[in-house]
């Protein structure tokens, strides 16, 4: 019977292949979407690592996280540099990274910070920042670029660039033209917002705003005249805190939250990330639903093809009937075909997805810092593959039942 089924399928090779292709593509797409989904979640959770507290002017957790870590939106207020320096000495604190935001370069955020950034900033599984080329800044007008900034804008070491006022990106009209910066370092890709940032010293942020008052330029200052100014930072936007021991977390958090000189918030990045992901999770669900529908479309395609072929196969069924095949045989013939198509379609789709992943892995690593590796089906993918198999077999009952009914009605009569 199996042999007979295979030969019958070979006779309808084109439609069988098309059906297989549709199922395979649907499954591959599902696996692809699932991979992007988990990778997105993963890289989201990997944005920041090793940091115990994120501190900024008092505001909601999400807002603080968005502007300090994801470099989206704006801070509600600044932190006095002296307050920062004092709090950095709180007992239990191992290291801090100051962040001064508010400037940009062609749509990319500029981060004013110090060398602790390159020393202590961690992402992913406690990975530190690495330099693809060059070194950290050690002079006033030096800048370190994130991987994406360098790649997209085509900067090399030694190139000069100027910063713009405001985080508004490419729409900024106020430029710090008179003070060009030199690229001295380019970071390796991290797959985090660091890739989309430019890093300069806190003093540099002071310098480009020399001669400014209340956020507007009062009189122009040239790079040569900058030495006349006191470049000690006056404010920063936020700072990241690493603790010596996790046991001190609540003490340090309380100390910062109850600071009297100015209202501050210290949030746990893990909790804030989870809170944010809960929001973005809706998009994740939408993606999952879309890919489930794609698989449903694939199976419906199979069902359509099988049902459409039934008419022309009635003659075949009558012949088999005359040979002594029972309606049960006919049912099995059709049903097994659907199950087989679903099985091979699923396997083919899986292989296709793994092939694409393998082909794209070097590109994803180089451009986005995403590590893609072919994997055995686990978790959702395994359940989905099993689900396609079951649904396919279940769907196969419909054409098989129709053929069964035809067989009973037609008997040996050859309906054309």
């Amino acid at each position, binding site marked *: 019977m199996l042999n007979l089924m295979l030969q019958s399928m070979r006779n309808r090779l084109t439609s069988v292949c098309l059906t297989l292709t549709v199922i395979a593509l649907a499954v591959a797409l599902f696996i692809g979407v699932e991979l992007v989904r988990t990778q997105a979640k993963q890289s989201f959770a990997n944005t920041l690592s090793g940091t115990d507290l994120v501190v900024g002017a008092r505001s909601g957790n999400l807002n603080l996280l968005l502007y300090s870590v994801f470099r989206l939106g704006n801070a509600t207020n600044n932190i006095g540099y002296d307050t920062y320096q004092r709090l950095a000495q709180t007992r239990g604190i191992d290291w801090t990274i100051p962040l001064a935001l508010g400037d940009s370069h062609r749509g990319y955020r500029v981060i004013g910070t110090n060398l602790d950034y390159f020393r202590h900033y961690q992402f992913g599984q406690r990975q530190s920042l690495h330099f693809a080329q060059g070194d950290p800044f050690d002079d006033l007008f030096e800048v370190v670029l994130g991987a994406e900034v360098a790649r997209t804008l085509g900067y090399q070491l030694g190139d000069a660039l100027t910063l713009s006022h405001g985080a508004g990106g490419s729409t900024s009209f106020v430029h710090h033209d008179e003070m060009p910066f030199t690229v001295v370092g380019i970071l390796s890709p991290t797959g985090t917002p660091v890739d989309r940032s430019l890093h300069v010293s806190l003093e540099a942020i002071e310098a480009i705003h020399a001669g400014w008052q209340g956020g507007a330029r009062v009189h122009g200052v040239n790079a040569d005249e900058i030495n006349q100014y006191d470049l000690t930072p006056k404010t920063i936007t936020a700072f990241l805190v690493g603790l010596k021991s996790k046991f001190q977390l609540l003490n340090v958090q309380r100390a910062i939250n109850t600071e009297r000189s100015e209202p501050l918030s210290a949030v746990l990045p893990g909790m804030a990330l989870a809170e944010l992901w809960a929001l973005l999770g809706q998009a994740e669900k939408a993606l999952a639903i879309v890919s489930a529908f794609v698989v449903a479309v694939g199976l419906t395609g199979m069902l359509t093809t099988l049902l459409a072929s039934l008419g022309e196969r009635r003659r075949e069924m009558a012949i088999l009937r005359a*040979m002594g095949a029972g309606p049960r045989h006919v049912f099995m013939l059709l049903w097994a075909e659907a199950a087989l198509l679903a099985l091979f379609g699923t396997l083919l789709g899986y292989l296709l997805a793994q092939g694409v992943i393998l082909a794209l892995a070097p590109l994803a690593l180089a451009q986005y810092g995403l590590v893609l590796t072919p994997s055995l089906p686990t978790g959702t993918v395994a359940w989905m593959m099993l689900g396609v198999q079951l649904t396919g077999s279940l769907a196969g009952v419909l054409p098989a039942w129709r053929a069964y009914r035809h067989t009973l009605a037609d*008997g*040996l*009569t*050859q309906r054309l």
Partner: protein
Amino acid sequence: MSLLTLRQLSYRWPGSERTLSVPALTLAAGERAMLRGSSGSGKSTLLNLISGVLKPDSGSLTLAGEALTTLSAGKRDRLRAETMGIVFQQFNLLPYLSVRQNILLPLKFAPGRRAKVVEPEIEVRRLLDAMELDAGILDRPVTALSVGQQQRVAVARALIGAPALILADEPTSALDPSARDHFMDLLAKQCHQTGSALLLVSHDPALARVVERQYQLQLHDSGSEVLPC
């Protein structure tokens, strides 16, 4: 002894008041009979009843010693596979199988017939030769054959494993008159050699010369009736 016996058989078409009735029809082992009737008189229905695909409403139907009316559908399918070779008026062959595979197909469903064929390849070639076909077509797709060739392959398939009864439903309707006569001679001769009985269902009186007994399907207002003639 008789191979096939129908007594007081009656079948009502579903959704209709009309019935097909067979007061008496017998066919001895090795005997050749013809059932004449115009189209629409219920020939196909009678064929389905004899082959066990349909079940009569009343009466008895005995085939090869088995009371077909008392058997389950599965047992009737099995009995059909073992005791009958069936030839349709056309489209007898599965298009996705070669000529050889088509001829061997009935053996898949009939272990009893399979046991009788010791050397399948030799038997296939013998049957082809008996039906005056060239062995060169064995591996050809059936779609490459002419209609006349296809009908002869169908007879070879019906005869393999020497079933007790060959049912032929308008086997010559797709053939021209000269091919028809030769085909009928071959069919009758091979049935005789194999020892199979032949039940021929046709509207064509020209086929009557190869049979020993005839029945007529008579159309009434209330249905149709099989009568000897």
